[in-house]
């Protein structure tokens, strides 16, 4: 099918199947809240645009993934990303055992198992390799003790993919392993964290002598860091996706139109500059995604996508606040003529962690300075 026809099909199908009341939601929806929709996507075979077809993905080229995603954004669909699809799946496909692939991949696609990601710890943020949650092999199980933080949707998750320390003596990067744990296992406590918007997507997860079967290790013992890094690479391209700013930009456009600002030269100059900031990132994203499509690896250069799009996102929310005036600080939903609901302050808040998660933008700049510009340490 040619690209144009496919695009039309996607738009049409979304229009027919996505619940009207979930369009342009005031808060990002969770996977659990949108279970019925996830199911429809799965039945349509559209759960994993980025996976190869042989594993039940759509096998789309990176370029096609972008245009596929655009159809969702344009329709006002704002659902938390499925980390298992974007991160865990590609990792299992690459490093998992045959048994792990056969068991987990279909269940990721169907949504039967919902996942969360356990990386950061209170003492291991930017310095992720300093993580201390320990896993000690005893018989057929790892015994896990420690604490993870910033674990999005841990309270909705069935399983967690996590980094743990399996060798305390080794160099910090060399003693880390990658485990898959059951969130219902005894010894796990979840505490939700309220963020600046007042919602609680984030959680802390405490592990107190939690048993994880030893076959739940992905890859080799103490090889977790290498895999995590390859995962961080693909995470960075995901969090460097143009869509990070597209949806808020669209809301900004709606707000501006309603306020009659589209003909205001001062606003237009700022707005058009932002549109180009996003369009130009699109062109860059395509160029980077092309590398993945060829089956090659992306390295530290993906950091530039993340820096640019998250800071563009923040400029978009700055302007949202600017044009909304005093109404911007009301803790209320603005309902626009087309029914879209906007809470400008919450977008302003939600754009804050964008330059923090997945490695702060300062860390990303350090990475680029050292690995690409080859500046001295």
């Amino acid at each position, binding site marked *: 099918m040619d690209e144009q026809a496919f695009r039309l099909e996607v738009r049409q199908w979304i229009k027919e199947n996505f619940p009207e009341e979930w369009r342009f939601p005031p808060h990002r929806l969770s996977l659990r809240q949108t279970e019925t929709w996830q199911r429809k996507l799965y039945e349509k075979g559209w759960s994993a645009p980025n996976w190869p077809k042989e594993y039940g993905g759509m096998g789309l080229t990176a370029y096609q993934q972008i245009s596929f995603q655009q159809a969702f954004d344009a329709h006002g669909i704002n659902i938390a990303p499925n980390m298992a699809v974007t991160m865990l799946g590609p990792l299992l496909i690459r490093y998992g055992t045959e048994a792990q692939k056969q068991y987990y991949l279909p269940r990721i696609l169907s949504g039967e198992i919902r996942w969360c990601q356990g990386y950061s710890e209170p003492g291991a943020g930017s310095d992720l390799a300093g993580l201390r949650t320990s896993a000690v092999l005893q018989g057929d199980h790892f015994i896990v003790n420690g604490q993870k933080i910033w674990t999005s949707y841990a309270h909705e998750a069935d399983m967690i993919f996590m980094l743990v320390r399996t060798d305390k003596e080794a160099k910090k990067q060399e003693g880390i392993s990658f485990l898959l744990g059951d969130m219902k296992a005894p010894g796990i406590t979840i505490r939700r964290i309220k963020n600046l918007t007042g919602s609680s997507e984030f959680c802390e997860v405490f592990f107190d002598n939690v048993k994880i079967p030893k076959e739940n290790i992905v890859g080799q013992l103490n090889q977790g860091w290498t895999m995590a890094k390859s995962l961080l690479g693909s995470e960075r391209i995901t969090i460097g996706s143009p869509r990070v700013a597209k949806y808020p930009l669209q809301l900004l456009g709606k707000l501006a139109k309603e306020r009659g600002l589209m003909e205001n030269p001062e606003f237009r100059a700022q707005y058009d500059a932002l*549109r180009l900031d996003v369009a*130009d990132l699109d062109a860059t994203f395509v160029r980077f995604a092309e590398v993945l499509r060829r089956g090659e690896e992306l390295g530290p250069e993906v950091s530039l996508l993340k820096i*640019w799009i998250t800071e563009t996102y923040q400029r978009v929310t700055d302007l949202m606040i600017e044009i909304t005036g005093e109404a911007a600080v009301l803790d209320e939903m603005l309902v626009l003529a087309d029914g879209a609901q906007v809470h400008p302050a919450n977008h302003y808040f939600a754009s804050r962690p964008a330059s923090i998660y997945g490695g702060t933008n300062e860390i990303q*700049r350090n990475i680029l300075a050292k690995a690409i510009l080859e*500046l001295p340490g």
Partner: protein
Amino acid sequence: MIDLKTRIDRFSDQQRMIQESAASFFSDAGNYKRIRERRGIAPGYDQSVWKAMADLGWLGFWLPEKYDGMGLGFAEASLLLEQGGRALAPEPLISAALMAGGAILHGDNEGLKAECLPRLMAGDWKPALAWQEAESSQQTESSSVTAVAQSGGFALTGSKYFIPAAEGADAFVVAARTPSGTALFLVDKGSAGTVIETHPRVDGGFFGTLKLAGVRVSASRCVASPGMGRAVLDRVLDEGRLAASAELLGVMSRALEISVAYIRQREQFGRPIGSFQALQHRAVDLFILVELSRSVLAHGAAVFDASPDPARRAVAASQAKARCSDAALKVAKGCVQLHGGIGYTDECDIGLFLKKSMVLATWLGSAAHHRRRYGELVAEAV
């Protein structure tokens, strides 16, 4: 520093060849010493380098093969122009060959095409495009320059501004208003009633002003008939914008390389200053702008190569020119800052890059102009 283009982009054999031969040509054509020596000396470029470009067939890089041109796509041409930008080459490849020559090619005078294009390609004859009628105006519908029909031809009156390589041009392709719309005419240098004023630019080159006082042009020298002049101008202007973006990319990427090398070796407080995070982060921000520019240019070239549709090309040209103009200025200024005091001296090469960026960034519409144009051309998705 690692060259990201080499690392992540893939090129065809032809593209690699063009890139390599251009890189070696411009390094042979002399370093920045050549640029310094030419500053302020008319015509502002090297006739011998121009001839050497002709020998390589480059003056016809944009011409279809039926005119014995190289028939390069914009993806390929950008690589050539980028190398020219890196070398700060002042030769008017864009303004004389691609734009003035292109106006002749896209016009409707077959006789002129046969007469002019081979001579242009051979490097023996150079046209200049005289279209602009006011500062900061990208208006292609002629208004103040008029062509009044006379027996067997027209009489042209008015002034054209900001003409690159006017000095050294053998003829001018002049846009003028007729009762049936804009037309383009070929006016030979030295024609009765013409005066050329040259104004030195900050980069050592020149802009010319062409004053026309009832200059007689025969109908056979009409490059594009009344009514079609504007479309031809719009086409070559957008091509010029994309091409200028490619040069800007070359200018900014080379400036950054020079500056990164400088902060690696320059020591203060007993360490290379490039080890300081403040400078590293500044350099990274410039690097991001260079790569955005490269992406936008590649996207623009692909759009141009895919379609002659003026509407799509206009969007792509504005997108590229907006980003590359803005980025080149930011990069060049940032590079002066990375150099410290020495960056403000004339002896340091980095200033040459700032000045070249200024010229190319303002020419054919500034970043602000093209952001506005993009905003007008592309409907918001709301």
